């Protein structure tokens, strides 16, 4: 490179949720990082819902925290309504969620980034990538500055060739009042990358002072709030409620009458939208029999004058949006401040990345976030931190960090991406995790803090706390397993709880295992041993109840480990494997799975294909050895 305006170890393009984590990880590990973004005031901006977490997403946030990321601390600092979802269901499927002060969240993230000495935050548009010999060397901005970097992480979100739709109005841009990034996508295509289209949408915002709250049903936040970060002691911000109202016949009539004015129904948007997050027009069309849908009225911040009507994502024309809003109880007199819209954008089908999130085409170039076909802040941040860690590992000459499906939701997310291209924006669900019971949100620290500490990203103290928590739980379970329940007390107890009779000699742990029995019930069956603290009691109870299932899962994981980890050479010639189905050959060639385990999960690859692969792998390795 002839002239350069700066030299960095890692350059990150875009400072959204992926970009922030992608920049912080290598910076905290001591590398020089350039964070280039269109507008510094939009660092960590929430494009849509002012909330972090939710089922499965909350798991991701706590895993990011355990690894040493920022998202959990940010939401703990600016959260105004915390709620543990699914409280009435089992611990593995509970998920923390919190509404955020939208502006406060961005301001917090901007502060963290600006205070990180190893990050240079710059405003600007990345327009070109410098690639020589198949390896990334740096980037060039739209205004011509050149920066050299050993690794580049691309996290451009919904901005590549983005178009926003409201009724028949169509504007280029990745987010309201923000431009699209046109040139970078073009450059990626000339490098050989394929792009495809996806879409998503957001509801209109209404003025807080014009809502009649008396007509909505109040939902109080949890008291005390449960923090996301394992390091947060308490949540100090004043908490607010959230309100629920409903659509009705009138709302549905208005929408039905105007369906032909929706760009979705006129076929103007080609990209697929998320089925789990449909626009209101979609819901009314597809579930015509449902007379009403609920709407959550979420305040966008303590001092904010905006309300986010969760459930009303739409791209209908402005006048229709205004009309249907006012048909809803509580919103009769509301002022619509910002109309809702849909956005269609380019993403890179995820058969172009490896598990490290490095692209298969250009060494040192990583993709993370919405651009890989996912949706959601948490999914983006999870990829961001992984890309950041792996860019740093590349600088250090270390192997990439790959989390397995049995280790973390992050592992499930990445593995899903490298085995199937999302057909709709990909969101995490607990049902995507086959090892759901071992991936509880409250064990994220036990699972990942040691990984974070080994990297140098999470603190040793955090890892130690996690290890102590695990050790104490094991110790207590060992005690309960060795302690014989006093016969009479035990029978009295189980009779009262209708938990079946107890034989003499039964251990306390066996009684706790019964569904109707909670830890506090067995307190009288203990002897003088010191009582564990309440959080530990709960942990012990959960472990005991899940034990049989968890052991089965762990056995299965162990059994499959060898095949799971058998690696496939990067340049393995799938076309030489006779007998593969066309679909399997095509998919394997596109995805280039790194291991047999990954290969076996690729869509369209059957167990028979895997058998053949094993045969040819053997032969390939033999001939490689010979030559």
């Amino acid at each position, binding site marked *: 490179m002839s002239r350069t305006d700066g030299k960095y170890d890692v350059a990150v393009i875009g400072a959204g949720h992926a970009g922030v984590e992608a920049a912080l990880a290598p910076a905290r590990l001591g590398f020089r990082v350039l964070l280039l973004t269109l507008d510094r005031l939009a660092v960590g901006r929430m494009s849509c819902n002012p909330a972090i977490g939710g089922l499965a997403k909350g798991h991701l946030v706590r895993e990011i925290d355990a690894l040493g990321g920022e998202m959990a601390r940010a939401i703990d600092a600016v959260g105004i309504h915390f709620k543990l979802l699914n409280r009435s269901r089992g611990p593995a499927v509970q998920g923390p969620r919190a509404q955020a002060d939208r502006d406060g969240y961005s301001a917090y993230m901007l502060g963290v980034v600006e205070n990180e000495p190893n990050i240079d935050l710059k405003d600007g548009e990345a327009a070109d990538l410098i690639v020589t010999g198949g390896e990334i060397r740096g980037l060039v901005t739209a205004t011509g500055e050149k920066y050299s970097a050993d690794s580049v992480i691309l996290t451009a979100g919904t901005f590549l060739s983005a178009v926003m739709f409201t009724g028949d109005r169509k504007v280029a841009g990745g987010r309201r009042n923000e431009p699209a990034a046109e040139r970078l996508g073009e450059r990626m295509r000339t490098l050989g990358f394929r792009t495809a289209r996806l879409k998503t949408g957001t509801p209109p915002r209404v003025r807080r002072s014009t809502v009649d709250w008396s007509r909505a049903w109040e939902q109080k936040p949890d008291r005390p709030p449960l923090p996301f970060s394992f390091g947060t002691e308490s949540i100090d911000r004043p908490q607010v409620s959230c309100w629920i109202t409903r659509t009705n016949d009138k709302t549905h009539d208005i929408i039905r009458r105007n369906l032909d004015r929706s760009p979705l129904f006129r076929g103007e948007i080609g990209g697929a939208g998320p089925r789990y997050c449909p626009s209101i027009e979609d819901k009314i069309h597809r579930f015509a029999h449902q007379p009403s849908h609920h709407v959550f009225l979420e305040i966008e911040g303590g001092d904010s004058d905006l309300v986010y009507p969760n459930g009303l994502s739409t791209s209908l024309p402005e006048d229709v949006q205004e009309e249907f809003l006012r048909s809803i109880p509580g919103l009769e007199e509301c002022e619509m401040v910002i109309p809702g819209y849909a956005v269609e954008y380019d993403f890179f089908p995820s058969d172009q990345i490896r598990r490290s999130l490095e692209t298969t085409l250009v060494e040192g170039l990583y993709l993370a976030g919405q651009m890989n076909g996912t949706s959601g802040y948490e999914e983006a941040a999870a990829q961001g931190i992984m890309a950041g860690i792996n860019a740093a590992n590349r600088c250090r000459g270390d192997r990439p960090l790959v989390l397995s499906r049995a280790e973390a939701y992050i592992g499930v997310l990445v593995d899903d991406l490298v085995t199937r291209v999302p057909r709709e924006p990909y969101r995490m669900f607990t049902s995507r995790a086959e090892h759901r019971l071992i991936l509880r949100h409250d064990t994220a620290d036990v699972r990942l803090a040691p990984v974070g500490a080994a990297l140098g990203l999470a603190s040793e103290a955090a890892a130690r706390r996690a290890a102590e928590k695990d050790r104490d739980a094991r110790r207590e379970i060992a005690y309960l397993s060795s302690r014989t329940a006093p016969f009479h007390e035990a029978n009295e107890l189980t009779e009262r709880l209708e938990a079946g009779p107890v034989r003499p000699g039964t251990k306390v742990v066996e009684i706790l295992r019964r569904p109707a029995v909670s830890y506090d019930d067995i307190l009288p069956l203990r002897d003088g041993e010191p009582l564990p603290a309440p959080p530990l009691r709960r942990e012990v109870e959960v472990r005991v109840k899940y034990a049989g299932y968890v052991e089965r899962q762990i056995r299965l994981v162990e059994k499959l480990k060898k095949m799971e980890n058998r690696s496939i050479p990067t340049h393995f010639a799938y076309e030489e494997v006779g007998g593969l189905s066309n679909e399997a050959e095509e998919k394997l060639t596109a995805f280039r799975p790194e291991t047999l385990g990954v290969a076996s999960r690729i869509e369209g690859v*059957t167990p028979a294909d895997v058998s053949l692969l094993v045969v040819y792998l053997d032969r390939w390795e033999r001939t490689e050895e010979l030559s």
Partner: protein
Amino acid sequence: MSTILYREGDTVVAPATAPGVGALAVVRISGPDAISIADRIFSGATPSRAPLRTMHHGTILSVDGEPIDEVLLTVFRTPHSYTGEDSVEISCHGAPYLVRRIVDRVVAEGARLAGPGEFTRRAFRNGRIDLAQAEAVADVIQARSAGAARSALRQLHGGLSKRLQSMRHQLIDVLADVEADLDFAAEEEVPSYDREAVKATLGEVLTIIRDLIEKGERGRIVRDGVRVVIAGRPNAGKSTLFNALLEEDRAIVSEEPGTTRDVLEGEIELGGILFTLHDTAGEREEATGAIETEGIQRAKAKQKEADIVLRVADRSVALTGDEKRLARGEHDLPRHLLVFTKGDLPAGPDAAAFDDAPRASRPLTVCVPSGEGLDELRADLLRLAVGEKEAGAGKQGVAGDADVTSRRHLQALRTVERAVVSGAATVREGELLAEDLRAALNGLDEITGEGAREELLDEIFSRFCIGK
């Protein structure tokens, strides 16, 4: 998916002809130990000294030197064999249980059962067949592999496949309800699943599964026979009973505990069904020496493969806790039968406690010198193997077309059964119920070769309006 991983360097064995009722069958052994194993099991010639590709007439012997079958044996040396490795091919009579016994005998000598397509895979790896041939064979593997969904399904009989399919759909429906509840009910307007309906569905599925298992099991038993393993403490009278049931003096009997060291085999016929009896070393903690320890290991291994474990307890001495529990019927082990021996000696205090119990809850007592109880024992064995009704009906019919008879499929069905039973007991805990339903579906998928990863989300999204 799980069965595909092969180890290199093993010696493997499998029938090389399609299982069925052909007059002759071929068992193939391949790998470094193939020929030395042949030396140990074959009488007629010494295979390791036999010239290349010559055929020898002789007998395959059981562990205790009894003839299993008269066979023709051919030796191939690397690289001049189908697989390119040292190999032995044994042409034996086609009866499935003979083939199985020969294969078992080879396994007992240290070989491993070959996986599907493994001989071809070895052939290919050793350069014995070229790409074109490998492709042709690959097609066969593809068609045969249980995983290759549709083709595997087509192989199943229409009626059976329909039943499996309909169970699968029932389970997916339930799972979709449960998962929707877990993933969306907190945020969306998704109804909670109906516990009673779930219970009812699981009940229906269980009835079908149990019916399939029972019929399949009977079919398999008629075809392959029943493995009975005689187990118990030293000196309990196992070998004595073994000899009595065989009606010949096969095993050494002595008053010295720890007499039997290795596993002995013998066959009898009851109600038209073949029973293979295995006499094993007595189990005790304080085994004397390596040989006895090994014998006890083998005895335990045998019990794992048994269709019926016949546990023998000497009634004249004190019983162990395990024996007492078994005698009282307090166990959930399938197909365990406890008998008291030495009916002519006075009962010890533990056994005497059962004297007044009604026949149904009292272990059977046998006395070999007088022959007392032996007929009853035979009847009990038959009943355990084929069920009450069939035992009375005499000779068995062969398995019907719509039955699952492969050992692997039956195993999968048992997994399904366990999962469904466990699920029905945990309908209140959605996340555990989901776990059981998944295990049940995986079991069914092992038979039908399907997979349900995306299907489930599709099902949820099509049924419920999800999204705020």
